């Protein structure tokens, strides 16, 4: 029981250490790109396309706009790289551009961002009733994964983004706060609330399967 939290904290500490070591490499990469080396920018796109796509695909509804927006983000990164002064990690800077681009897109399309933040007050309806439910193996990991993915997709965009940045991109509360322009306490509070909602829904699905 002691292993899991220590493993999580150790992974984040390793990420921080690696980031500090990688800053020199990042600086060289940025300098090469600003000097006109497009192959270096191609490498940057490959390195950070996962981060950008994670945020865009969480915040923007499904459709062709998502990939187009991902491309626009990298064009903005290219155009503004000369202004980056390494006062934060390159990933944080790119994530912030991505997040702001998504906000602008949602605003342009009049789509909500903070809608349904009190969704836990709504009566819960399971996302995907499953005819092959096996109550005796309620916590089978693949089944859990499927349910979690479905339920994450139903969360408000802010919660989805927080979960993505924390769990999939291994970012700290501080970094997430910088990206989403939120106090660290709010990041933690929203993240806890999002996971509590997911946990409740996960348990409700299995209770529904058993009944």
């Amino acid at each position, binding site marked *: *029981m*002691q292993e*899991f*939290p220590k493993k*999580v*904290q150790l992974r*984040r500490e390793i990420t921080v250490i690696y980031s500090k070591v990688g800053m020199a490499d990042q600086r060289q990469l940025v*300098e090469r*790109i*600003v*000097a*006109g080396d*497009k192959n270096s*920018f*191609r490498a940057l*796109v*490959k390195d950070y*396309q*996962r981060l950008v*796509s*994670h945020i*865009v*695909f969480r915040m923007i509804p499904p459709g062709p706009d*998502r*990939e187009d927006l*991902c*491309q626009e983000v*990298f*064009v*903005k990164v*290219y*155009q503004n790289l*000369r*202004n980056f*002064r390494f*006062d934060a990690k390159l990933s944080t*800077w790119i994530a*912030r*551009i991505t997040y*702001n681009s998504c906000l602008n897109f949602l605003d342009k399309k009049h789509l909500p961002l903070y809608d349904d933040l009190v969704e836990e007050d709504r009566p819960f309806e399971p996302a995907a009733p499953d005819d092959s439910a096996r109550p005796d193996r309620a*916590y089978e*990991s693949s089944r*859990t*994964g499927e*349910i*979690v*993915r479905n339920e*994450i997709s139903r969360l408000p965009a802010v919660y989805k983004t927080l*979960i993505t940045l924390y*769990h*999939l991109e291994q970012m700290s509360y501080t970094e997430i706060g910088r990206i989403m322009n939120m106090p660290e306490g709010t990041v*933690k509070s929203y*993240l*806890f609330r999002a*996971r*509590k909602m*997911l*946990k409740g829904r*996960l*348990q409700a699905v299995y209770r529904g399967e058993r009944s």
Partner: protein
Amino acid sequence: MNEIHLTDDQLQAYLDGTLAETDAVEVHFASCPHCRQALEVYRQLYAAIEEEAAPELSPDFVDRVMTRLPESEFTADAEVFAGGFRLRDSLAFIVAIMAAIAAAVYFLNPVTLFRSVEDVSAPSLADNTYLSAFLKDLSGLHLDVSIVLFTILTFLGIALIDRILAHRRRHRKPISYLV
């Protein structure tokens, strides 16, 4: 303690490694099956979230990004960023200054003023043997020596100023962090 269970926030903080009183919590886990079960649910939730695959982009995504890039975004900056001397821009500036000086000479005739200053303060340049020959050649070209020297000094001064400005531009303070 067994009748008081950990909250969801405490369970998550424990898993995130941000809970201060971990020792007391672990003692509680040892004697509370309810909280152990709740913790296990969160552990599986975390694991399920972190197993999710990254979104799939088109195979030619990177190529399409590269085709959308503006052509010469960093050409001028590249020369400055590398600490180089921007010859093209400097030459244009120098030619402009020399044209301005030539126009001033033509319309305002500062030669007389310059010569009067020279008479008062500077020793005669014709005293030097090698220089006198050079000056004789120049005078054959109907050029005033002081104007030629003044122009050369202007050229060097502009080049020096441009180099200083290029160096300062490369090391300027950040304008903004966030776009």
